[in-house]
């Protein structure tokens, strides 16, 4: 059974052909191919216009690479949330039009469900039940998965997602976007024990909180900048609150710490805080739910420190840890096709009145 998956939930336009939810035949992601050189050029990060430009060539490329024609498809699976509403609309509208004109069944897939099922696209595959920790720029959720369609949310972030904390701290340090790979790079050279940033374990629940960590980094930087300002007149003191750096400007939150050893130490200590919490809470869930299988997915699961520490914890707890390869951890349409296959089999066909939603909890 061949399914065409489409994902336009965030920055990347992606289309993929997957057979029986397990075998990837093609998986095209706009920012990882040279397609955008042919069609796109540099366009704003958030532009849904970019998805409009990319969707046709990307779907075309997915079919061509797989040597599959429309009439061989058993269904089209499209991500309808959560994500950026303008971006989701492009994928959904395209999928609806395609299914209507070619008379192909349409199924709607929750992005988080896609991340869970990315793990079935590679060997070894977990058996049910398992725990799934989804960590990305927009999500930090821990689920118990008993079967396809049978999920229980054990916890989620109460404020910032783990990846968002990386992005915001990276911006505070003046290091740019996306924060994950940048911070990871600096962290390699740093001492993770240099600064004792807080860890919100919230022991009464499986929820997460990373907002306080971000604030702690900001407060640390402010103190450091003051200290440096006293020592050197070349360093700009922080701006007073409500000062606008032109339209779209940030206030006094953009501080720079030019000392690279300090930068490395901040990055390493911050990363340790995040990874400690994610690993520890997963460990608690293993104990509480008596499940010794864990799937780790989402963009932050591309972080090598998290991958390493999660596996070490698995070894200690004699739990199997399943982490998809990096390309399948970050956003991709193959995972949407994989989850879509199960919806097709279950007969959950979506109507042509399908509407995407930015906020869409898995259950």
């Amino acid at each position, binding site marked *: 059974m061949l399914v065409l998956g489409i994902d336009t939930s*965030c920055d990347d336009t992606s289309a993929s052909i997957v057979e029986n939810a397990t075998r990837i035949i093609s998986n095209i992601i706009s920012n990882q191919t040279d397609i955008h050189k042919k069609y796109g050029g540099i366009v*704003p*990060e*958030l*532009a*849904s*216009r970019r998805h409009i430009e990319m969707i046709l060539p990307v779907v075309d490329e997915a079919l061509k690479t797989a040597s599959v024609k429309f009439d061989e498809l058993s269904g089209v699976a499209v991500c309808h949330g*959560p*994500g*950026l*509403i*303008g971006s989701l609309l492009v994928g959904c509208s395209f999928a609806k039009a395609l299914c209507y004109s070619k008379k192909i069944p349409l199924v709607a897939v929750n992005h988080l469900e896609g991340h869970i099922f990315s793990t079935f696209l590679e060997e070894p595959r977990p058996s049910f039940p398992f725990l799934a920790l989804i960590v990305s*720029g*927009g999500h930090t959720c821990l689920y118990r998965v008993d079967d396809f369609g049978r999920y229980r949310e054990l916890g*989620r*972030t*109460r*404020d*910032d*997602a783990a990846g*968002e904390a990386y*992005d*915001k701290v990276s911006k*505070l340090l003046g290091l740019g976007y996306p924060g994950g790979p940048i911070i990871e790079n600096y962290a390699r050279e740093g001492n993770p024990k240099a600064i004792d940033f807080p860890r919100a374990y919230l022991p009464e629940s499986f*929820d997460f909180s990373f*907002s*306080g960590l*971000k*604030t702690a980094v*900001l*407060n640390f930087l402010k103190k450091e900048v003051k200290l440096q300002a006293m020592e050197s007149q070349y360093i700009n003191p922080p701006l007073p*609150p*409500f000062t*606008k750096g032109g*339209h*779209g*400007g940030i*206030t*006094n*939150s953009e501080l720079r710490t030019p000392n690279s050893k300090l930068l490395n130490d901040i990055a390493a200590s911050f990363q340790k805080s995040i990874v400690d919490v994610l690993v520890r809470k997963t460990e608690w869930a293993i104990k509480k739910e008596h499940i010794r299988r864990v799937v780790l997915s989402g963009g932050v699961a591309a972080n090598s420190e998290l991958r390493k520490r999660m596996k070490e914890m698995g070894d200690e707890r004699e739990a199997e840890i399943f982490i998809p390869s990096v390309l399948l951890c970050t956003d991709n349409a193959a995972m949407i096709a994989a989850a879509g296959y199960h919806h097709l089999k279950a007969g959950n066909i979506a109507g042509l009145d399908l509407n995407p*939603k*930015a*906020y869409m*909890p898995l259950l």
Partner: protein
Amino acid sequence: MLEGRIQNKKYISKGPDETKDIGYRLGKKLRPGDAVGLYGELGSGKTTMVKGIARALGIEEIDIMSASFTIITEYDSDPPFSHIDLYRIEKDSELDEVGFWEHIGGSGISVIEWAEKAENMLPENLIRVGLTSVGEEIREITIEGRDEKDWNSL
């Protein structure tokens, strides 16, 4: 901008719970069509305050998370509630791209974090809330705009 204008009412919050509480009491006074702009640096408690405002509209606190990623998160409350976060917005044109204007005014209530990013385009009757860190946990909260007398005794 808040700076330099007469500030009608200043509240001091001793921590996240009090910030939520002030948000809750503010939320109780909001009417359909109202837009609230939140001004304050990272970590000043903007999302915390949104949790309080949303609770006043019958939305559970756990359902309010940072909206920096989705930019706009809409809730099917009565009246409908939009949690908007302009942190990632770089240009005016992106406000159109994300469907910003569909959530301002109308019959819903919207709360806008990082409102300064759309400062020159926001409605006249915007209710402005400023959050300033004055200690590790302590925040100074100012509220102004619309019927200012309403904010004197939250």
